[in-house]
Protein backbone atom coordinates (compact mmCIF):
# COMPACT_ATOMS: atom_id res chain seq x y z
CA UNK A 1 0.00 0.00 0.00
CA UNK A 2 2.88 2.31 0.82
CA UNK A 3 4.20 1.26 -2.55
CA UNK A 4 1.48 3.16 -4.44
CA UNK A 5 2.07 6.27 -2.42
CA UNK A 6 5.79 6.15 -3.13
CA UNK A 7 5.10 5.62 -6.79
CA UNK A 8 2.79 8.63 -6.95
CA UNK A 9 5.34 10.73 -5.07
CA UNK A 10 8.08 9.68 -7.45
CA UNK A 11 5.97 10.48 -10.49
CA UNK A 12 5.20 13.93 -9.07
CA UNK A 13 8.89 14.59 -8.46
CA UNK A 14 9.94 13.47 -11.91
CA UNK A 15 7.12 15.37 -13.61
CA UNK A 16 8.55 18.69 -12.42
CA UNK A 17 12.25 18.02 -12.59
CA UNK A 18 13.35 21.62 -12.56
CA UNK A 19 11.40 22.51 -9.45
CA UNK A 20 12.66 19.39 -7.71
CA UNK A 21 16.21 20.27 -8.66
CA UNK A 22 15.94 23.83 -7.42
CA UNK A 23 14.58 22.65 -4.08
CA UNK A 24 17.36 20.09 -3.85
CA UNK A 25 20.00 22.69 -4.62
CA UNK A 26 18.76 24.78 -1.72
CA UNK A 27 19.49 21.91 0.64
CA UNK A 28 22.73 21.05 -1.14
CA UNK A 29 24.01 24.58 -0.80
CA UNK A 30 22.91 24.81 2.84
CA UNK A 31 24.60 21.57 3.87
CA UNK A 32 27.67 22.25 1.72
CA UNK A 33 28.25 25.65 3.27
CA UNK A 34 27.56 24.28 6.73
CA UNK A 35 30.22 21.62 6.18
CA UNK A 36 32.73 24.10 4.86
CA UNK A 37 32.10 26.42 7.81
CA UNK A 38 32.32 23.75 10.46
CA UNK A 39 35.33 21.99 8.93
CA UNK A 40 37.23 25.21 8.56
CA UNK A 41 36.33 26.68 11.94
CA UNK A 42 36.95 23.38 13.63
CA UNK A 43 40.27 23.01 11.88
CA UNK A 44 41.31 26.47 12.92
CA UNK A 45 40.24 25.90 16.51
CA UNK A 46 42.06 22.59 16.66
CA UNK A 47 45.16 24.16 15.23
CA UNK A 48 45.03 26.93 17.82
CA UNK A 49 44.30 24.61 20.68
CA UNK A 50 47.10 22.39 19.52
CA UNK A 51 49.70 25.12 19.42
CA UNK A 52 48.43 26.54 22.70
CA UNK A 53 48.45 23.17 24.37
CA UNK A 54 51.90 22.23 23.24
CA UNK A 55 53.36 25.57 24.27
CA UNK A 56 51.48 25.76 27.55
CA UNK A 57 51.69 23.04 30.17
CA UNK A 58 48.37 21.55 31.26
CA UNK A 59 49.18 22.69 34.78
CA UNK A 60 51.85 25.20 35.72
CA UNK A 61 52.97 25.41 39.36
CA UNK A 62 55.06 28.40 40.38
CA UNK A 63 55.78 30.71 43.23
CA UNK A 64 53.62 33.77 42.78
CA UNK A 65 55.46 36.49 44.63
CA UNK A 66 53.08 38.17 47.03
CA UNK A 67 53.09 41.93 47.11
CA UNK A 68 50.75 42.56 49.97
CA UNK A 69 51.88 45.74 51.71
CA UNK A 70 48.74 46.50 53.71
CA UNK A 71 50.55 45.77 56.97
CA UNK A 72 53.84 47.09 58.15
CA UNK A 73 56.10 45.86 60.90
CA UNK A 74 55.66 49.33 62.39
CA UNK A 75 52.09 48.38 63.28
CA UNK A 76 53.43 46.13 66.01
CA UNK A 77 55.30 48.84 67.86
CA UNK A 78 52.89 51.75 67.56
CA UNK A 79 49.22 52.06 68.41
CA UNK A 80 47.43 52.19 65.11
CA UNK A 81 44.18 53.33 66.69
CA UNK A 82 45.72 56.72 67.40
CA UNK A 83 48.06 57.20 64.52
CA UNK A 84 48.65 56.13 60.96
CA UNK A 85 51.87 54.49 59.76
CA UNK A 86 52.74 55.53 56.26
CA UNK A 87 55.49 53.67 54.43
CA UNK A 88 56.51 55.08 51.07
CA UNK A 89 57.31 52.70 48.27
CA UNK A 90 57.70 49.42 50.18
CA UNK A 91 59.78 46.68 48.55
CA UNK A 92 59.83 42.96 49.18
CA UNK A 93 62.73 41.66 51.17
CA UNK A 94 64.26 38.22 51.33
CA UNK A 95 61.78 36.76 48.87
CA UNK A 96 63.01 34.12 46.51
CA UNK A 97 60.89 33.06 43.54
CA UNK A 98 61.79 29.40 43.82
CA UNK A 99 59.80 26.38 44.91
CA UNK A 100 61.02 24.69 48.07
CA UNK A 101 61.45 20.95 48.10
CA UNK A 102 60.85 20.52 44.37
CA UNK A 103 62.06 16.88 44.37
CA UNK A 104 59.46 15.92 46.95
CA UNK A 105 56.67 17.74 45.14
CA UNK A 106 57.60 16.21 41.79
CA UNK A 107 57.61 12.68 43.15
CA UNK A 108 54.34 13.37 44.97
CA UNK A 109 52.67 14.69 41.79
CA UNK A 110 53.75 11.55 39.99
CA UNK A 111 51.65 9.45 42.39
CA UNK A 112 48.47 11.10 41.06
CA UNK A 113 46.43 9.43 38.34
CA UNK A 114 46.26 10.89 34.90
CA UNK A 115 49.78 12.39 35.00
CA UNK A 116 51.85 11.93 31.88
CA UNK A 117 54.95 13.98 32.63
CA UNK A 118 56.27 16.33 35.29
CA UNK A 119 59.02 18.72 34.36
CA UNK A 120 60.69 20.87 37.01
CA UNK A 121 62.23 23.97 35.48
CA UNK A 122 64.34 26.93 36.28
CA UNK A 123 63.57 29.80 34.00
CA UNK A 124 65.21 33.15 33.97
CA UNK A 125 65.31 36.34 31.98
CA UNK A 126 68.55 36.55 30.04
CA UNK A 127 70.27 38.61 27.42
CA UNK A 128 71.56 36.90 24.34
CA UNK A 129 74.72 38.63 23.23
CA UNK A 130 75.09 39.13 19.54
CA UNK A 131 78.20 41.26 19.13
CA UNK A 132 77.35 44.63 20.63
CA UNK A 133 73.59 43.95 20.53
CA UNK A 134 71.84 42.36 23.48
CA UNK A 135 68.59 40.56 22.80
CA UNK A 136 66.31 39.97 25.79
CA UNK A 137 64.71 36.59 26.17
CA UNK A 138 64.00 33.74 28.51
CA UNK A 139 66.15 30.77 29.30
CA UNK A 140 64.51 27.54 30.40
CA UNK A 141 66.57 25.04 32.31
CA UNK A 142 64.88 21.69 31.91
CA UNK A 143 65.29 17.97 31.92
CA UNK A 144 64.90 17.87 28.16
CA UNK A 145 63.33 14.36 27.97
CA UNK A 146 60.56 15.30 30.41
CA UNK A 147 60.09 18.62 28.65
CA UNK A 148 59.74 16.83 25.32
CA UNK A 149 56.84 14.85 26.75
CA UNK A 150 55.16 18.14 27.65
CA UNK A 151 55.65 20.07 24.46
CA UNK A 152 56.35 17.45 21.80
CA UNK A 153 59.51 19.44 21.26
CA UNK A 154 61.01 16.71 19.10
CA UNK A 155 58.29 17.39 16.49
CA UNK A 156 58.97 21.10 16.57
CA UNK A 157 62.66 20.88 15.79
CA UNK A 158 63.73 22.69 12.65
CA UNK A 159 67.39 21.70 12.90
CA UNK A 160 69.33 19.39 15.22
CA UNK A 161 67.88 16.92 17.73
CA UNK A 162 66.84 17.29 21.33
CA UNK A 163 68.99 14.38 22.53
CA UNK A 164 72.11 16.38 21.63
CA UNK A 165 71.35 18.69 24.54
CA UNK A 166 72.39 15.86 26.87
CA UNK A 167 75.37 14.74 24.82
CA UNK A 168 77.01 18.13 24.32
CA UNK A 169 78.46 20.07 27.26
CA UNK A 170 76.66 23.40 27.65
CA UNK A 171 74.39 22.75 24.70
CA UNK A 172 71.46 25.03 23.90
CA UNK A 173 68.27 24.77 21.82
CA UNK A 174 67.27 28.11 20.34
CA UNK A 175 63.86 29.29 19.17
CA UNK A 176 63.83 29.63 15.41
CA UNK A 177 63.18 33.38 15.43
CA UNK A 178 65.82 33.93 18.06
CA UNK A 179 68.39 31.91 16.11
CA UNK A 180 67.67 33.99 13.03
CA UNK A 181 68.17 37.21 14.98
CA UNK A 182 71.40 35.90 16.45
CA UNK A 183 72.39 34.57 13.06
CA UNK A 184 73.31 31.36 14.84
CA UNK A 185 73.04 27.82 13.57
CA UNK A 186 73.96 24.38 14.89
CA UNK A 187 77.57 24.29 16.07
CA UNK A 188 77.83 28.04 16.77
CA UNK A 189 78.56 29.49 20.19
CA UNK A 190 76.22 32.02 21.82
CA UNK A 191 76.85 33.95 25.00
CA UNK A 192 74.14 34.59 27.59
CA UNK A 193 74.10 37.12 30.40
CA UNK A 194 71.95 36.73 33.51
CA UNK A 195 70.23 39.67 35.26
CA UNK A 196 72.88 39.30 37.99
CA UNK A 197 75.58 39.98 35.42
CA UNK A 198 77.08 36.52 35.20
CA UNK A 199 77.50 35.12 31.74
CA UNK A 200 78.06 31.76 30.10
CA UNK A 201 78.65 30.45 26.59
CA UNK A 202 76.54 27.71 25.02
CA UNK A 203 76.90 25.69 21.87
CA UNK A 204 73.82 25.59 19.62
CA UNK A 205 72.66 21.99 19.13
CA UNK A 206 69.33 22.70 17.49
CA UNK A 207 66.51 25.15 16.73
CA UNK A 208 62.80 24.71 17.29
CA UNK A 209 59.60 26.38 16.12
CA UNK A 210 56.28 26.27 17.98
CA UNK A 211 54.56 28.44 15.42
CA UNK A 212 53.95 31.15 17.98
CA UNK A 213 56.12 34.17 17.29
CA UNK A 214 56.19 35.47 20.86
CA UNK A 215 57.73 32.15 21.87
CA UNK A 216 60.04 31.35 19.01
CA UNK A 217 61.64 34.79 19.21
CA UNK A 218 62.68 34.65 22.86
CA UNK A 219 62.83 31.15 24.23
CA UNK A 220 65.73 28.73 24.51
CA UNK A 221 66.34 25.48 26.37
CA UNK A 222 69.39 24.33 28.24
CA UNK A 223 69.85 21.73 30.95
CA UNK A 224 68.55 22.54 34.42
CA UNK A 225 72.04 22.24 35.85
CA UNK A 226 73.40 24.90 33.47
CA UNK A 227 70.86 27.53 34.52
CA UNK A 228 71.54 26.79 38.17
CA UNK A 229 75.23 27.38 37.42
CA UNK A 230 74.53 30.59 35.49
CA UNK A 231 72.43 31.98 38.33
CA UNK A 232 74.77 30.66 41.01
CA UNK A 233 72.11 28.54 42.68
CA UNK A 234 72.23 25.09 44.21
CA UNK A 235 70.98 22.01 42.43
CA UNK A 236 67.64 22.12 44.28
CA UNK A 237 66.78 25.54 42.92
CA UNK A 238 63.67 25.34 40.69
CA UNK A 239 61.09 28.03 39.87
CA UNK A 240 58.43 26.15 37.93
CA UNK A 241 56.91 22.72 37.77
CA UNK A 242 55.11 21.98 34.51
CA UNK A 243 52.72 19.09 34.26
CA UNK A 244 51.23 17.26 31.32
CA UNK A 245 48.16 15.12 31.83
CA UNK A 246 46.75 12.16 29.96
CA UNK A 247 43.39 13.93 29.77
CA UNK A 248 43.91 17.67 29.63
CA UNK A 249 40.23 18.40 30.17
CA UNK A 250 40.69 17.41 33.83
CA UNK A 251 43.41 20.00 34.41
CA UNK A 252 41.17 22.51 36.14
CA UNK A 253 40.19 20.28 39.09
CA UNK A 254 43.68 18.90 39.58
CA UNK A 255 45.23 22.38 39.49
CA UNK A 256 43.03 23.36 42.40
CA UNK A 257 44.10 20.25 44.32
CA UNK A 258 47.79 21.03 43.80
CA UNK A 259 47.32 24.64 44.83
CA UNK A 260 45.84 23.57 48.15
CA UNK A 261 48.32 20.76 48.75
CA UNK A 262 51.59 22.55 48.01
CA UNK A 263 50.65 26.14 48.71
CA UNK A 264 51.96 27.45 45.38
CA UNK A 265 50.16 29.07 42.53
CA UNK A 266 48.78 26.32 40.30
CA UNK A 267 47.38 27.38 36.97
CA UNK A 268 45.64 25.25 34.34
CA UNK A 269 46.02 25.80 30.60
CA UNK A 270 42.58 27.31 30.16
CA UNK A 271 43.34 30.04 32.66
CA UNK A 272 46.74 30.60 31.12
CA UNK A 273 45.11 30.99 27.69
CA UNK A 274 41.88 32.61 28.80
CA UNK A 275 41.66 35.11 25.96
CA UNK A 276 42.37 32.48 23.32
CA UNK A 277 39.75 30.20 24.88
CA UNK A 278 37.18 32.99 24.68
CA UNK A 279 37.90 33.49 21.01
CA UNK A 280 37.52 29.76 20.41
CA UNK A 281 34.16 29.77 22.18
CA UNK A 282 32.97 32.77 20.19
CA UNK A 283 34.07 31.17 16.94
CA UNK A 284 32.20 27.99 17.84
CA UNK A 285 29.08 30.00 18.61
CA UNK A 286 29.31 31.84 15.32
CA UNK A 287 29.78 28.61 13.43
CA UNK A 288 26.69 27.12 15.03
CA UNK A 289 24.57 30.22 14.41
CA UNK A 290 25.59 30.53 10.76
CA UNK A 291 25.25 26.80 10.08
CA UNK A 292 21.83 26.79 11.68
CA UNK A 293 20.76 29.77 9.58
CA UNK A 294 21.93 28.10 6.38
CA UNK A 295 20.01 24.94 7.15
CA UNK A 296 16.88 26.79 8.19
CA UNK A 297 16.95 28.83 4.99
CA UNK A 298 17.15 25.57 3.04
CA UNK A 299 14.18 24.37 5.09
CA UNK A 300 12.18 27.45 4.13
CA UNK A 301 12.96 26.77 0.49
CA UNK A 302 11.48 23.31 0.81
CA UNK A 303 8.49 24.61 2.74
CA UNK A 304 7.82 27.09 -0.02
CA UNK A 305 8.14 24.63 -2.84
CA UNK A 306 6.01 22.00 -1.12
CA UNK A 307 3.31 24.58 -0.50
CA UNK A 308 3.40 25.55 -4.14
CA UNK A 309 3.31 21.92 -5.26
CA UNK A 310 0.31 21.20 -3.11
CA UNK A 311 -1.47 24.32 -4.31
CA UNK A 312 -0.97 23.10 -7.89
CA UNK A 313 -2.11 19.60 -7.00
CA UNK A 314 -5.37 20.33 -5.21
CA UNK A 315 -7.40 18.62 -7.92
CA UNK A 316 -5.21 15.53 -7.87
CA UNK A 317 -5.49 15.33 -4.11
CA UNK A 318 -9.27 15.50 -4.40
CA UNK A 319 -9.32 12.75 -7.03
CA UNK A 320 -7.08 10.52 -4.97
CA UNK A 321 -9.34 11.00 -1.99
CA UNK A 322 -12.40 10.23 -4.13
CA UNK A 323 -10.67 7.04 -5.23
CA UNK A 324 -10.27 6.01 -1.63
CA UNK A 325 -6.86 7.31 -0.64
CA UNK A 326 -7.00 8.41 3.00
CA UNK A 327 -5.62 11.64 4.43
CA UNK A 328 -2.64 9.67 5.78
CA UNK A 329 -1.86 8.44 2.25
CA UNK A 330 -1.84 12.01 0.96
CA UNK A 331 0.48 13.04 3.81
CA UNK A 332 2.80 10.17 2.92
CA UNK A 333 2.84 11.15 -0.74
CA UNK A 334 3.94 14.70 -0.09
CA UNK A 335 6.17 13.94 2.86
CA UNK A 336 8.00 11.41 0.76
CA UNK A 337 8.57 14.08 -1.85
CA UNK A 338 10.12 16.50 0.58
CA UNK A 339 12.19 13.76 2.22
CA UNK A 340 13.52 12.71 -1.17
CA UNK A 341 14.45 16.29 -1.90
CA UNK A 342 16.07 16.47 1.53
CA UNK A 343 17.97 13.21 1.24
CA UNK A 344 19.38 13.76 -2.23
CA UNK A 345 19.99 17.42 -1.49
CA UNK A 346 21.86 16.49 1.67
CA UNK A 347 23.93 13.78 -0.04
CA UNK A 348 24.90 16.18 -2.79
CA UNK A 349 25.60 18.69 -0.03
CA UNK A 350 28.08 16.27 1.52
CA UNK A 351 29.92 16.04 -1.76
CA UNK A 352 29.86 19.80 -2.24
CA UNK A 353 30.95 20.39 1.36
CA UNK A 354 33.77 17.90 1.06
CA UNK A 355 34.91 19.35 -2.24
CA UNK A 356 34.92 22.91 -0.92
CA UNK A 357 36.67 21.90 2.31
CA UNK A 358 39.23 20.01 0.31
CA UNK A 359 39.73 23.05 -1.91
CA UNK A 360 40.31 25.31 1.07
CA UNK A 361 42.57 22.71 2.64
CA UNK A 362 44.78 22.85 -0.43
CA UNK A 363 44.94 26.64 -0.50
CA UNK A 364 48.40 27.81 0.58
CA UNK A 365 48.23 29.84 3.77
CA UNK A 366 49.46 33.40 3.21
CA UNK A 367 53.16 33.31 4.00
CA UNK A 368 53.78 34.24 7.58
CA UNK A 369 57.06 33.79 9.43
CA UNK A 370 55.39 33.60 12.83
CA UNK A 371 53.00 30.75 12.13
CA UNK A 372 54.19 27.30 11.23
CA UNK A 373 51.33 26.41 8.84
CA UNK A 374 51.62 26.09 5.11
CA UNK A 375 47.93 25.57 4.23
CA UNK A 376 44.56 26.40 5.76
CA UNK A 377 43.71 24.13 8.67
CA UNK A 378 40.60 22.09 7.81
CA UNK A 379 39.29 19.05 9.61
CA UNK A 380 37.40 16.17 8.04
CA UNK A 381 35.33 14.66 10.83
CA UNK A 382 32.75 11.99 9.97
CA UNK A 383 30.52 13.25 12.77
CA UNK A 384 30.13 16.63 11.05
CA UNK A 385 29.02 14.92 7.87
CA UNK A 386 26.62 12.62 9.69
CA UNK A 387 25.20 15.59 11.54
CA UNK A 388 24.81 17.48 8.27
CA UNK A 389 22.71 14.72 6.72
CA UNK A 390 20.67 14.13 9.85
CA UNK A 391 19.98 17.81 10.37
CA UNK A 392 19.27 18.32 6.67
CA UNK A 393 16.76 15.48 6.71
CA UNK A 394 15.25 16.81 9.91
CA UNK A 395 14.81 20.29 8.46
CA UNK A 396 13.15 18.92 5.34
CA UNK A 397 10.97 16.66 7.44
CA UNK A 398 9.72 19.59 9.47
CA UNK A 399 9.48 21.88 6.45
CA UNK A 400 7.62 19.21 4.48
CA UNK A 401 5.41 18.12 7.35
CA UNK A 402 3.39 21.32 7.64
CA UNK A 403 2.27 21.53 3.99
CA UNK A 404 1.75 17.74 3.86
CA UNK A 405 -0.49 17.76 6.91
CA UNK A 406 -2.46 20.54 5.28
CA UNK A 407 -2.77 18.49 2.08
CA UNK A 408 -4.06 15.54 4.08
CA UNK A 409 -6.90 17.67 5.45
CA UNK A 410 -8.06 19.01 2.09
CA UNK A 411 -11.80 18.56 1.57
CA UNK A 412 -12.22 16.84 -1.81
CA UNK A 413 -15.84 17.95 -2.27
CA UNK A 414 -14.99 21.63 -2.14
CA UNK A 415 -12.45 21.11 -4.93
CA UNK A 416 -14.43 18.69 -7.10
CA UNK A 417 -17.36 21.10 -7.20
CA UNK A 418 -14.98 23.50 -8.91
Amino acid at each position, binding site marked *: *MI*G*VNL*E*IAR*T*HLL*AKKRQTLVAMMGVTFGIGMYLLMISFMNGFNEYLEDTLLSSTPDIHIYNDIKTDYSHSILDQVSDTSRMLNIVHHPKPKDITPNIHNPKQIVSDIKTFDNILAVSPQLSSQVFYNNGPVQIPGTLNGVNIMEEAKLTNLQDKMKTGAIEDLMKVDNGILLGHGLATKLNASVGDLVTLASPQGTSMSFRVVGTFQFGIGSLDNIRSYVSLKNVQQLLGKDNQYVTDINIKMKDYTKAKQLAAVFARKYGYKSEDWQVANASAMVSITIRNMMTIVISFTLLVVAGFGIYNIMNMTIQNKL*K*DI*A*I*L*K*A*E*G*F*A*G*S*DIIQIFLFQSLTIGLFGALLGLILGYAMSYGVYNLPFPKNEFMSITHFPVTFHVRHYVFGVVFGMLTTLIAGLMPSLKAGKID*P*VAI*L*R*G
Partner: protein
Amino acid sequence: METVLRAKKVNKYFYEPEEFHVLKDISFEVRRGEFLSLIGKSGCGKSTLLYLLSTMDTDYKGEIEINGTKLTGQKQKQLAAFRNEHIGFVFQFHFLLPEFSALKNVMLPAEKLNKYSKSEIKDRAYEKLRMLDMQDYAMKQSSKLSGGQAQRVAIARALINDPTIIMGDEPTGNLDTANTQIVFDILKDLATNKGQTIIAVTHDPEFAQKSDRIIEMKDGEIIKQ
Protein backbone atom coordinates in the same frame (compact mmCIF):
# COMPACT_ATOMS: atom_id res chain seq x y z
CA MET B 1 -33.72 -8.04 -4.67
CA GLU B 2 -31.88 -6.85 -1.61
CA THR B 3 -31.44 -3.21 -0.70
CA VAL B 4 -27.93 -1.97 -1.29
CA LEU B 5 -28.30 1.70 -0.38
CA ARG B 6 -30.59 3.30 2.14
CA ALA B 7 -30.90 7.05 2.84
CA LYS B 8 -33.05 8.05 5.81
CA LYS B 9 -34.21 11.59 6.42
CA VAL B 10 -31.03 13.14 5.08
CA ASN B 11 -30.80 16.89 5.60
CA LYS B 12 -28.02 19.20 4.65
CA TYR B 13 -27.42 22.87 5.16
CA PHE B 14 -24.95 25.31 3.72
CA TYR B 15 -24.01 28.14 6.03
CA GLU B 16 -22.02 30.25 3.61
CA PRO B 17 -22.79 32.85 2.43
CA GLU B 18 -26.07 32.45 4.35
CA GLU B 19 -27.92 29.52 5.85
CA PHE B 20 -29.46 27.45 3.08
CA HIS B 21 -31.37 24.20 3.47
CA VAL B 22 -30.09 22.41 0.38
CA LEU B 23 -31.38 18.84 1.05
CA LYS B 24 -34.67 18.33 2.84
CA ASP B 25 -35.66 15.01 4.39
CA ILE B 26 -34.28 12.88 1.60
CA SER B 27 -35.26 9.24 2.07
CA PHE B 28 -35.01 6.50 -0.52
CA GLU B 29 -33.67 3.02 -1.14
CA VAL B 30 -31.81 1.46 -4.02
CA ARG B 31 -31.72 -2.24 -4.77
CA ARG B 32 -28.75 -4.27 -5.91
CA GLY B 33 -28.32 -4.25 -9.69
CA GLU B 34 -30.59 -1.28 -10.14
CA PHE B 35 -29.81 1.45 -12.70
CA LEU B 36 -31.03 4.67 -11.16
CA SER B 37 -31.19 8.10 -12.78
CA LEU B 38 -31.24 11.24 -10.67
CA ILE B 39 -32.77 14.19 -12.46
CA GLY B 40 -33.94 17.70 -11.65
CA LYS B 41 -33.33 21.31 -12.49
CA SER B 42 -29.93 22.85 -12.14
CA GLY B 43 -29.22 23.80 -8.54
CA CYS B 44 -31.79 21.44 -7.00
CA GLY B 45 -29.12 19.56 -5.07
CA LYS B 46 -28.31 16.47 -7.15
CA SER B 47 -24.54 16.79 -6.94
CA THR B 48 -24.75 17.63 -3.26
CA LEU B 49 -26.73 14.45 -2.62
CA LEU B 50 -24.32 12.37 -4.67
CA TYR B 51 -21.33 13.64 -2.65
CA LEU B 52 -23.11 12.59 0.52
CA LEU B 53 -23.83 9.14 -0.86
CA SER B 54 -20.23 8.80 -2.00
CA THR B 55 -19.11 9.29 1.66
CA MET B 56 -16.85 12.19 0.71
CA ASP B 57 -19.13 14.74 2.36
CA THR B 58 -19.93 13.82 5.96
CA ASP B 59 -21.52 17.08 7.03
CA TYR B 60 -25.24 16.17 7.11
CA LYS B 61 -28.07 14.98 9.36
CA GLY B 62 -29.88 11.71 8.88
CA GLU B 63 -28.46 8.32 8.00
CA ILE B 64 -26.83 6.66 5.03
CA GLU B 65 -26.22 2.95 4.77
CA ILE B 66 -24.54 1.10 1.93
CA ASN B 67 -24.21 -2.65 1.55
CA GLY B 68 -25.50 -3.15 5.08
CA THR B 69 -22.86 -0.87 6.59
CA LYS B 70 -24.00 2.27 8.36
CA LEU B 71 -21.66 4.95 7.09
CA THR B 72 -22.97 7.91 9.05
CA GLY B 73 -20.59 8.81 11.85
CA GLN B 74 -17.68 6.69 10.63
CA LYS B 75 -14.11 7.97 10.65
CA GLN B 76 -12.57 9.51 7.53
CA LYS B 77 -10.00 6.73 7.31
CA GLN B 78 -12.62 3.97 7.32
CA LEU B 79 -14.77 5.89 4.85
CA ALA B 80 -11.81 6.19 2.50
CA ALA B 81 -11.22 2.45 2.64
CA PHE B 82 -14.93 1.82 2.11
CA ARG B 83 -15.03 4.20 -0.83
CA ASN B 84 -11.99 2.52 -2.32
CA GLU B 85 -13.60 -0.89 -2.28
CA HIS B 86 -17.30 -0.24 -2.80
CA ILE B 87 -17.78 2.99 -4.70
CA GLY B 88 -16.69 3.97 -8.16
CA PHE B 89 -17.12 7.64 -8.94
CA VAL B 90 -17.31 9.32 -12.37
CA PHE B 91 -17.21 13.11 -12.52
CA GLN B 92 -18.60 15.30 -15.21
CA PHE B 93 -15.17 16.60 -16.06
CA HIS B 94 -13.11 13.42 -16.31
CA PHE B 95 -10.46 14.49 -13.71
CA LEU B 96 -7.57 12.17 -14.47
CA LEU B 97 -4.15 12.53 -12.85
CA PRO B 98 -2.24 14.35 -15.60
CA GLU B 99 1.25 12.92 -14.98
CA PHE B 100 0.16 9.31 -15.30
CA SER B 101 -0.69 7.20 -18.32
CA ALA B 102 -4.31 6.21 -18.97
CA LEU B 103 -3.48 2.69 -17.78
CA LYS B 104 -1.87 3.89 -14.57
CA ASN B 105 -4.85 6.11 -13.81
CA VAL B 106 -7.07 3.06 -14.02
CA MET B 107 -4.68 0.96 -11.92
CA LEU B 108 -4.19 3.32 -8.99
CA PRO B 109 -7.42 2.60 -7.04
CA ALA B 110 -6.69 -1.12 -7.36
CA GLU B 111 -3.14 -0.65 -6.12
CA LYS B 112 -4.54 1.23 -3.18
CA LEU B 113 -6.99 -1.63 -2.52
CA ASN B 114 -4.06 -4.04 -2.69
CA LYS B 115 -6.16 -7.10 -3.27
CA TYR B 116 -4.56 -8.30 -6.48
CA SER B 117 -0.96 -8.65 -7.60
CA LYS B 118 0.50 -5.97 -9.77
CA SER B 119 0.28 -8.03 -12.96
CA GLU B 120 -3.33 -8.99 -12.21
CA ILE B 121 -4.14 -5.33 -11.67
CA LYS B 122 -2.58 -4.52 -14.98
CA ASP B 123 -4.59 -7.23 -16.76
CA ARG B 124 -7.79 -6.06 -15.11
CA ALA B 125 -7.06 -2.46 -16.04
CA TYR B 126 -6.53 -3.46 -19.67
CA GLU B 127 -9.78 -5.38 -19.58
CA LYS B 128 -11.69 -2.31 -18.31
CA LEU B 129 -10.06 -0.12 -20.93
CA ARG B 130 -11.05 -2.62 -23.60
CA MET B 131 -14.66 -2.49 -22.43
CA LEU B 132 -14.59 1.22 -23.21
CA ASP B 133 -12.61 0.72 -26.38
CA MET B 134 -9.65 2.63 -24.96
CA GLN B 135 -7.02 -0.14 -24.94
CA ASP B 136 -5.05 1.55 -27.72
CA TYR B 137 -4.52 4.62 -25.56
CA ALA B 138 -3.40 2.72 -22.47
CA MET B 139 0.15 4.08 -22.51
CA LYS B 140 -0.78 7.59 -23.52
CA GLN B 141 -0.23 10.27 -20.92
CA SER B 142 -3.68 11.20 -19.69
CA SER B 143 -3.19 14.95 -20.11
CA LYS B 144 -2.83 14.31 -23.85
CA LEU B 145 -6.21 12.57 -24.26
CA SER B 146 -9.25 14.29 -25.72
CA GLY B 147 -12.20 15.09 -23.42
CA GLY B 148 -14.26 12.13 -24.55
CA GLN B 149 -11.29 9.76 -24.34
CA ALA B 150 -10.44 10.97 -20.87
CA GLN B 151 -14.03 10.49 -19.75
CA ARG B 152 -13.99 6.89 -20.92
CA VAL B 153 -10.71 6.28 -19.06
CA ALA B 154 -12.32 7.80 -15.98
CA ILE B 155 -15.21 5.37 -16.30
CA ALA B 156 -12.78 2.47 -16.63
CA ARG B 157 -11.09 3.72 -13.47
CA ALA B 158 -14.41 3.75 -11.61
CA LEU B 159 -14.92 0.10 -12.55
CA ILE B 160 -11.49 -1.23 -11.62
CA ASN B 161 -12.34 -2.51 -8.11
CA ASP B 162 -15.71 -3.96 -9.21
CA PRO B 163 -17.47 -1.57 -6.84
CA THR B 164 -20.87 -2.28 -5.34
CA ILE B 165 -22.14 1.08 -6.54
CA ILE B 166 -21.02 3.19 -9.46
CA MET B 167 -21.91 6.85 -9.04
CA GLY B 168 -21.77 9.31 -11.87
CA ASP B 169 -22.31 13.07 -11.87
CA GLU B 170 -23.35 13.61 -15.48
CA PRO B 171 -21.00 10.86 -16.65
CA THR B 172 -21.98 11.32 -20.27
CA GLY B 173 -22.31 15.09 -20.12
CA ASN B 174 -19.19 15.50 -22.23
CA LEU B 175 -19.78 12.73 -24.74
CA ASP B 176 -21.40 12.73 -28.17
CA THR B 177 -24.50 10.62 -28.85
CA ALA B 178 -22.55 7.60 -30.07
CA ASN B 179 -20.27 7.53 -27.06
CA THR B 180 -23.16 8.24 -24.70
CA GLN B 181 -24.83 5.14 -26.12
CA ILE B 182 -21.69 3.04 -25.62
CA VAL B 183 -21.31 4.17 -22.01
CA PHE B 184 -24.98 3.59 -21.30
CA ASP B 185 -24.79 0.06 -22.68
CA ILE B 186 -21.74 -0.74 -20.55
CA LEU B 187 -23.41 0.54 -17.40
CA LYS B 188 -26.60 -1.30 -18.22
CA ASP B 189 -24.64 -4.49 -18.77
CA LEU B 190 -22.82 -4.12 -15.43
CA ALA B 191 -26.15 -3.67 -13.67
CA THR B 192 -27.98 -6.59 -15.22
CA ASN B 193 -25.15 -9.10 -15.57
CA LYS B 194 -22.80 -8.25 -12.70
CA GLY B 195 -25.34 -6.96 -10.21
CA GLN B 196 -23.55 -3.64 -9.78
CA THR B 197 -25.73 -0.71 -8.84
CA ILE B 198 -25.65 2.50 -10.90
CA ILE B 199 -26.66 5.93 -9.65
CA ALA B 200 -26.27 8.57 -12.34
CA VAL B 201 -27.12 12.24 -12.27
CA THR B 202 -28.17 13.27 -15.74
CA HIS B 203 -29.71 16.09 -17.71
CA ASP B 204 -30.29 13.77 -20.67
CA PRO B 205 -34.00 12.73 -20.70
CA GLU B 206 -33.34 9.91 -23.15
CA PHE B 207 -30.60 8.48 -20.91
CA ALA B 208 -32.89 8.70 -17.88
CA GLN B 209 -35.81 7.16 -19.71
CA LYS B 210 -33.81 4.04 -20.63
CA SER B 211 -32.64 3.44 -17.04
CA ASP B 212 -34.53 1.24 -14.54
CA ARG B 213 -35.80 4.00 -12.30
CA ILE B 214 -35.85 7.79 -12.10
CA ILE B 215 -35.71 9.92 -9.00
CA GLU B 216 -36.64 13.50 -9.64
CA MET B 217 -35.65 16.32 -7.32
CA LYS B 218 -36.79 19.88 -6.91
CA ASP B 219 -35.43 22.46 -4.50
CA GLY B 220 -33.74 19.86 -2.33
CA GLU B 221 -36.67 17.49 -2.15
CA ILE B 222 -37.54 14.27 -3.94
CA ILE B 223 -40.72 14.91 -5.83
CA LYS B 224 -40.98 11.65 -7.75
CA GLN B 225 -39.42 8.20 -7.32
